């Protein structure tokens, strides 16, 4: 499993949580694969064919090369966000899986790291599926760049998973996830440069776009897969933002869950 590369095996306790989720996923693999993999592939197909036919060049590259890295990031973002919200909340609130785990030597931080790394794993896995299709389809002109993009995508997935946990930590009912998808996932889908360059939007949309981690992720992944020039310092700046947001989000989620569970 290529996703193994992204596992943050902090210790064997968080790894035990991660493995529990892998085990359940293997038993329910097909519906899960459908949402996480087929979904972005449908988008890729539709936009690749539909828009690719009208658009000649975007950002100095053919449209397929432009949209494939965007879809990689989108796949990572959507899968990690879904897993760390809807699925994690089901384990937390519906199945009481968290209660069962917290009665063992696993600490809350380890449990959350296990959940987060699993959501990130699913994100990275979905991105890998898009990469495979992109390679076959010809949307990845620069092969070594893809290898470099993998850890970048994994970091992005970690960030999206951590942000999802913040929503889950605040969720009292399922309703909050409707807001999460409308105000967080959808803007990243449309404003972060997945299908168009961010510069096409008016300045205030651009300002919002640059606050979203997805925009920074795409800014690094796209030049890598296209083999375009990428200033390492600028890349580091983008990745630093994503990493900082991941740490901040995880810390906030940990604080919220701690208050909620133990106080």
């Amino acid at each position, binding site marked *: 499993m290529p996703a193994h590369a992204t596992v943050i095996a902090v210790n*064997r306790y968080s790894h035990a949580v991660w493995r529990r989720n892998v085990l*359940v996923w293997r*038993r329910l693999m097909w519906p899960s694969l459908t949402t996480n993999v087929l979904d972005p592939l449908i988008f890729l197909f539709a936009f690749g064919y539909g828009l690719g036919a009208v658009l000649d060049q975007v950002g100095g590259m053919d449209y397929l090369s432009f949209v494939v890295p965007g879809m990689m990031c989108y796949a990572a973002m959507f899968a990690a966000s879904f897993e760390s919200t809807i699925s994690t909340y089901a384990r937390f609130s519906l*199945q*009481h899986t968290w209660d*069962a785990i917290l*009665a*063992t030597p696993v600490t809350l931080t380890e449990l959350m790291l296990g959940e987060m790394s699993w959501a990130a794993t699913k994100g990275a896995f979905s991105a890998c599926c898009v990469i495979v299709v992109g390679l076959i389809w010809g949307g990845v002109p620069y092969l070594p760049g893809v290898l470099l993009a993998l850890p970048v995508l994994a970091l992005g997935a970690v960030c999206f998973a951590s942000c999802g946990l913040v929503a889950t930590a605040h969720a009292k009912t399922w309703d909050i996830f409707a807001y999460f998808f409308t105000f967080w996932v959808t803007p990243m889908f449309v404003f972060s440069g997945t299908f168009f360059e961010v510069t096409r939007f008016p300045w205030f949309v651009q300002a919002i776009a640059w606050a979203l981690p997805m925009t920074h992720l795409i800014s690094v992944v796209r030049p890598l897969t296209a083999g375009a020039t990428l200033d390492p310092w600028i890349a580091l700046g983008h990745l630093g933002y994503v990493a900082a947001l991941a740490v901040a989000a995880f810390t906030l989620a940990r604080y919220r869950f701690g208050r909620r*569970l133990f*106080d």
Partner: protein
Amino acid sequence: MEGAAAKTPVIEVEALEKRYGAVHAVRGVSFAILPGTCVGLLGPNGAGKTTTMRMIMGLTHVTAGRLRLFGEAPRDLGRGLRERVGLVPQEDNLDPDLSVRQNLEVYGRYFGIEAGQVALRVPKLLDFMQLAERGAAKVMQLSGGMKRRLIIARALISNPELVILDEPTTGLDPQARVMIWRRLLDLKRDGKTLLLTTHYMEEAQRLCDRIIIIDGGKVLDEGTPQQLIDRHVRGHVLEVAKPLPDGFVEDGLERNDIGDAVLYYASDPAEVTRRLPRDATYLHRAANLEDVFLRLTGHSLRQGG
């Protein structure tokens, strides 16, 4: 030294308190549980039983008071202490998508137990809880009684010294209940310490060496079942329906008005019967733990009860 060490209580709580915002769920509970004993925590719904257990397990923070496990103060319940405790929660929190065996294997990993060790323990535990033939079954396919048995087996995966059981047999049929009682007595014979909550007085009377009755977040009394019966309901209960017969003098009798009848407690039934008119009808039976419980916690229905 060995004798002194053996007497260190497994659980020791002193003036334990828990507040959830404005709700004062536990208001100064104190007790000590000695190794190898089975202690029952009895109380109506909302008495603070589950909260007390959750504090002992480190699943909720202690607001005030002192808590010691195995003689140590658990700071957020350190890993070393948690490995020695197994919890059977009230609700079913098994993994519904996994098989019976996988539920145990996955749980073993949370305790950091080697895969080889777990593989050795799983068949033994399935055997112990009479689930050996259901190892491959999905949890979703199990009956309520089987799920309970699996939850108990799961709590034993780390071979804990202390097992905490929150209403282990609620909602089970008599056969399943008796089976679980036998297993719990087996565990006690193995030297494990048990702390359980229950609504079934028969269960408490059969299993528990000591009983702690709590209500309103406070300990009302504790002792062996017999001590509690002697202390509060004296051995015999005579129930006289209302209206009470003419010429019946109640003075000096221990009584408890339950609405449409009055219960009288006596060490000798004649204490009551000789005061009753010859033709009066009454119900006479041996006092049990249920009488103690109702006497101490009252007869009115509780929220959720």
